[in-house]
């Protein structure tokens, strides 16, 4: 991988991040229009013109949108995401508390989903059209189609009735507090997340495996008398691995912004809950902060995936053309 490529890619990523900031600013600051109305609710109507002007000046709303953007963006560069209007706590602190929960959930879900998805994808692809293929595909489709909120709801209800365990009743236990207690809280939500994820991984694995299995080099390997197991793992799965790794990386990025429903139902204080509370309380600093962070994380993860992709594939790893 050439340095030139890497630099170009980093520059592109930075450009995208600036674009992300612009979109977040436009969508969340320009569209709702009036932070004051949002903050004071119905009381805003009782403000005099002078009070309103003073408040607008206090929040910097009287300057031009461009000025506002650069002031806000300047703050971002210093790690200042603003202050929650509801509680007065800096958004960075709130995110700092919520992020580990979401990260743990995402990692746990991936750890469960990836092996399951890859194994079943291979199983399905080993005999396309056979009973095993159709049943794995059918289950996979259900895994994608049954909404997460249904699975989560049913799981919570089942936990409550079968184990008299109500996740939402207790308080959150971090890994630092108690590893076992934490795992007990996190395992079920992670499982719920893992269902859809495993289905996606399975589908990608299946199609990538089938594609690789049809390659000429697989026939070459068989023609050398290589054992079937080695053909499957060393040749087919290895080549199918590149799209699988890419997809898993992207899914991980998605997961950072996609744990919302599960966090809500299982009452876990993660980024999703934070975001949802921000939206429901019209606390835009929080919504902005979380959206920006997750989008930025997503961009960085995608960049990482791209780099890993290029490292995995000798065709893009090295410079020059001929030996």
């Amino acid at each position, binding site marked *: 991988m050439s340095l030139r490529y890497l630099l170009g890619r980093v520059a*592109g990523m930075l*450009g*995208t*991040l600036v*674009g*992300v900031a*612009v*979109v*977040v600013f436009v*969508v*969340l600051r320009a*569209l*709702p229009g009036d932070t004051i109305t949002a903050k004071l609710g119905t009381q805003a109507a009782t403000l005099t013109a002078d009070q309103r002007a003073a408040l607008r000046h206090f929040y910097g709303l009287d300057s031009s949108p461009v000025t506002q953007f650069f002031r806000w963006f300047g703050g971002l560069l210093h790690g200042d995401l603003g202050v929650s209007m509801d509680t007065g706590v800096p958004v960075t602190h709130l995110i700092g508390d919520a992020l580990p929960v979401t990260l743990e959930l995402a990692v746990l879900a991936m750890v469960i989903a990836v092996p399951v998805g890859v194994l079943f994808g291979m199983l399905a692809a080993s005999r396309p*059209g056979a009973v095993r293929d159709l049943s794995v595909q059918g289950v996979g*489709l*259900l895994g*994608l*189609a*049954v*909404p*997460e*909120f*249904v699975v989560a*709801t*049913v799981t*919570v*209800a*089942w936990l409550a*009735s079968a184990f008299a365990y109500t996740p939402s009743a207790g308080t959150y236990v971090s890994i630092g507090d108690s590893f076992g207690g934490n795992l007990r809280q996190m395992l079920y939500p992670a499982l719920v997340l893992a269902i859809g994820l495993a289905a996606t991984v399975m589908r990608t694995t299946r199609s990538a495996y089938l594609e690789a299995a*049809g390659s000429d080099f697989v026939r070459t390997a068989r023609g050398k008398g290589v054992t079937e197991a080695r053909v499957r793992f060393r040749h087919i799965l290895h080549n199918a691995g590149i799209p699988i790794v890419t997809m898993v990386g992207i899914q991980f*990025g*998605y*997961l*950072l*912004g*996609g744990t*919302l*429903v599960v966090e*809500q*139902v299982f009452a876990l204080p993660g980024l999703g809950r934070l*975001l*949802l509370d*921000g*939206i*429901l309380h019209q606390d835009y600093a929080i*919504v902005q902060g979380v*959206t920006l962070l*997750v*989008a*930025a994380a*997503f*961009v960085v993860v*995608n960049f990482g995936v791209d780099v890993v992709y290029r490292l995995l594939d000798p065709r893009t790893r090295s410079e020059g053309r001929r030996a």
Partner: protein
Amino acid sequence: MTRAATLVAPAPRTAGQPSLPRRIVADRNGLIGVVLVGLLVVVAVVSLVHLGQDPLAQNRTGQLAGPSGAHWLGTDQFGRDIAARVAAGVFASLRVALVSVGMATIVGGLLGVLSGFAGGVLDAVVGRCTDVLFAFPATLLALALVAALGHGWFNTAIAIAVVYTPIFVRVARGPVLTVRESEYVKAGRVLGFSRSRLLFRHVLPNVGAPIAVQVALALSWAILTEAGLSFLGLGTQPPSPSLGLMVSDARNFFPDAWWTLLFPALAVVVAVVGLNMVGDGLRNALDPRRS
């Protein structure tokens, strides 16, 4: 099986190709998908029109009643008929899905085709914009937009449309690049065909297939997203019937009043599975290697 068959030289065929709907139905997945989606719509129409229950009518005496002759799918905590509410919810979902995917297909598809065909500055600008939108995880972007735009089905539709537009840009652009470099388009250039003729008569008809497949898949995703947003209280607002809201309400009565959760959930699953399979059927029907 098909792999071996391709090694045999195909005999020249004389019959014309069957029409697209026929080919979708000829595919096993496509047939199941069409049947599922059709069934859902028919059942919804029948239960709304024929049974004549008002999805909003409350009934103080018959709350949380199980399925019965009067209420086929039971009633909810306000004694409202679940069958009627699910049917109305299905239509609400489909309305959001169709409007949002329609907007995304037209805007995204057009931008994708134009930027792919024209290349140059337009392509670069459109490419950067889609990159930025792609930087947001889909759910997050929809959520942020709903937060900004406010509730209501149309705002939900707009939010979903914005999320799906860049996807349609990419889905349309890729095949346009391939077709643009195809020999039959080059032949058209050598024959002196105008750019608009090449675009509309030669490129567009040959990039419809992947877009059509994506439309089916996008519809299923839009239904899931709409339901999810409603579940979180960010989509359709009560008392309007919505599948996501119904599941959310049912949480408090599950598993005792299981019907309050099962039927709306089932409606979502059937719609999503059905549309996915229609998508598979379309993909197979439009795959030139299979025809």
